[in-house]
């Protein structure tokens, strides 16, 4: 799965088959070019090598998946949409900048939703619960940490 901007800047890449870095770069270049060259209103599917490409544009970002011959194109379009919904819900009307500055979160959310190239969990609630839990864990720890700093400073004050 690739996310890239209208200017062809890659924002997220997720590979579910083993490939060398060189191959990944080549494929990325080729796909970005192919998809950006397509006009609006064209079909969201195209054949590429022995795979099928399913893509959709959301504002300034293109979401693009490569699937195998037997895979279902329409459900893949909705995989993309559900991922966008997840990002949207997590960031609160997501924009490209959220994905740039919080790229690691975008990867974490994707891992909860898709694993090994297959849908793992389709429930929006369950996916976000997993992510929020992680955030809560972090905040709890951060809170703990500030308490400790406080005690330390109190000690020094004494």
């Amino acid at each position: 799965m690739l996310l890239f901007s209208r200017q062809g800047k890659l924002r997220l890449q997720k590979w579910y088959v083993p490939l060398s870095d060189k191959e990944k770069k080549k494929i990325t270049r080729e796909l970005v070019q192919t998809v950006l060259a397509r006009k609006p209103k064209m079909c969201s599917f195209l054949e590429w090598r022995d795979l099928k490409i399913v893509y959709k544009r959301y504002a300034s970002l293109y979401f693009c998946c490569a699937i195998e011959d037997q895979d279902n194109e329409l459900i893949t379009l909705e995989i993309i949409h559900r991922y966008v919904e997840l990002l949207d819900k997590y960031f609160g009307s997501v924009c490209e900048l959220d994905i740039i500055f919080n790229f690691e979160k975008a990867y974490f959310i994707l891992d909860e939703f898709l694993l090994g190239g297959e849908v793992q969990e389709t429930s929006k609630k369950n996916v976000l619960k997993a992510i929020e839990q992680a955030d809560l864990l972090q905040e709890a720890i951060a809170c703990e940490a500030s308490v400790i700093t406080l005690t330390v400073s109190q000690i020094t004050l004494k």
Partner: protein
Amino acid sequence: RPGANTTAIMPAVSKGDGMRGLAVFISDIRNCKSKEAEIKRINKELANIRSKFKGDKALDGYSKKKYVCKLLFIFLLGHDIDFGHMEAVNLLSSNKYTEKQIGYLFISVLVNSNSELIRLINNAIKNDLASRNPTFMCLALHCIANVGSREMGEAFAADIPRILVAGDSMDSVKQSAALCLLRLYKASPDLVPMGEWTARVVHLLNDQHMGVVTAAVSLITCLCKKNPDDFKTCISLAVSRLSRIVSSASTDLQDYTYYFVPAPWLSVKLLRLLQCYPPPEDAAVKGRLVECLETVLNKAQEPPKSKKVQHSNAKNAILFETISLIIHYDSEPNLLVRACNQLGQFLQHRETNLRYLALESMCTLASSEFSHEAVKTHIDTVINALKTERDVSVRQRAADLLYAMCDRSNAKQIVSEMLRYLETADYAIREEIVLKVAILAEKYAVDYSWYVDTILNLIRIAGDYVSEEVWYRVLQIVTNRDDVQGYAAKTVFEALQAPACHENMVKVGGYILGEFGNLIAGDPRSSPPVQFSLLHSKFHLCSVATRALLLSTYIKFINLFPETKATIQGVLRAGSQLRNADVELQQRAVEYLTLSSVASTDVLATVLEEMPPFPERESSILAKLKRKKGPGAGSALDDGRRDPSSNDINGGVEPTPSTVSTPSPSADLLGLRAAPPPAAPPAPAGAGNLLVDVFDGPAAQPSLGPTPEEAFLRFVCKNNGVLFENQLLQIGVKSEFRQNLGRMYLFYGNKTSVQFQNFLPTVVHPGDLQTHIRLNVTKRVAAQVDGGAQVQQVLNIECLRDFLTPPLLSVRFRYGGTPQSLTLKLPVTINKFFQPTEMAAQDFFQRWKQLSLPQQEAQKIFKANHPMDAVLTKAKLLGFGSALLDNVDPNPENFVGAGIIQTKALQVGCLLRLEPNAQAQMYRLTLRTSKEPVSRHLCELLAQQF
């Protein structure tokens, strides 16, 4: 928002753990005005991080996390990262969730095969898997799934099934475990042991948690493809799950309902799973399933519950998958026709996506005998799509469908529409359209004058895209059918009158007039001198190959029309021919001139006698289309269902010396051609082991045979044996290799008493393998294989350059109405092209030293899987192809070998050393070759043999 200042482009809300330093760095990068500035900023940051990591002060977890995250960002921008792995590994053992999480993310994205690191990573993963903390367990499982390497498989493949079926595993852990296992199984199926857990995995289809079912179905679908019998019980479970979803109301499934469609992802996956099997045997299960399929078709007619595209996409995703299943079963005429009508509605839908999918799906419907006629009724809509669709990928689908729905009744209409489309078609698909038109015109030709007209039209409209295969083919057919020769001569003569005609037209015209020009010579308008001067007027504008062909035509003219002899001899004698800089042209001119001067009329007539008919063979055009489109492309035509009688014009040998599709001329050097392969003994009807007499070895066990992967591995060190066997079919292989060439005989035995229909074995070159190794089928098998019978196929193999993956053999046929298909790796591995090299110890060591770059060496230390017997080991190494060198290794227990891999493009020298350690029951294998991937690949292949 380029151009905005730093503060403005920082996101207002930073969720969870904001890393301010990271955000500042990302802003800086975004503000860089040029690539150079970006690189400068990155180098500065890398230096900073390096010094922090190397510094004396121990970094706290937060800083480590921040820096690792920066490195990750830099890597994702496309820059190389060569440090920080250790710090990332350290983060894995942090007990702070987000630190661990970043560590895992880094490892997942930047895996390094550094063995020391892998050990540490695996250790951290092991701890997390054992932690009983579900969030940690999930992180570890995600990491294994994301990396999916063999090393991870070796470390964890045995543990994950346990986690998956453990009663106390949390749902989220089960979900991750299922897909993690799926990834490992796809990468290295041999590492995942089947066992008691498989039955429990099937029962996950009944799980209460829809997410668990969703993840489990994917795993089961993958597993059952390779072990269909072990997972048969999943059919009834899948049907009942599907039935419950399909019949539920749009809100029953709460968060698993997507835009008023209940569980669309799960439904699609279940329908995919069912496509791994033939229709259920149990009548009740089948009845329930048919009911489901009907419900889906019915729902498609209901008004939509929402206007959102997500609603219709999800609903139609299920519908298309349902139609795929109906097509897969290919046994319910009623459902097939309903599916076809539904797709017919989509053909005119305003959504481009649906039109595209309907065209695509109808293509497969067209090859079912039940729905072929129903598909044909949409011909006008499809032709209209070809003319009016704005998107080339949709037009391509329309062209495919026209090709698939073509039969004798509509061939003329379809061919003429495709010809018309060709005039304006996109360059990218012209060649394919040309091939398709050529095939259809040949296959459905009733009168061959129509065929000749069509091909000449092709050359006229799209001459540049008419490949050699196409124009060779028209020559073969004209040569083999005397009722069309006069017409062909007349037509090409007329076509050549055009002031500018394509060079391919000159080739076809030159050849046909040279053979059959006499048939129109009676007409004064096309008398011999007129024919000659017409051809010769094109001569000077043509390429060398065409001029060479024309010279052959001229010498034929001297034989056919003695009155042209003086003129033609004059042409041959001209300095521009006799002293032509091109060797081929010069030689032809000299030889033809001499031949025409010294040979008597009788000798000339014998030498230049009309070409004999070409032997019957597969159309080389069809082969080319298959190569272009990959497996299944020619399916509509290979399908023996329609007009098997129309194969009567098959030809196959190319008429000119420079050819592309005949087996390489050097194949004769193998010396195999003269001696036919030993024929298999006539199979006793209904015998279980058809090939057992021909093939030695334990491979030919009747039912408990090896898995295809095991069978494939056995062929690494031997050339003959059973490649595949199940209850229906046995495939045996005999092969011989010499230099970079090989020949393989495949024997297909029908083990049942029922005839196989549409039997079609094809060779597939995945990826760009075609440029590495070439396989040509020289002997085709018939589409029907009688019960108990055995048929043979011959492949010529040429290794062009080193390759790592084997070509595939795809076999499709129908058994009792059910389509069967399997794909096997053909036992063609790079070591088959080994030429053993003998050398003295001194030479060996010198070469060994020369190949001392780290990437030239591959080494593996592994446990013995078979008894460590020196004789067997020797036999295997010899079978592997290298020479065995005695008295080289100081330790007599060790084995040393040498050889050269012969490919057309290059030779790869290989040295190997195998050190058995009987005490530890281990081996160490070292390979050194001049080419890095070859070392690794040979090492892997050979290590699996002991």
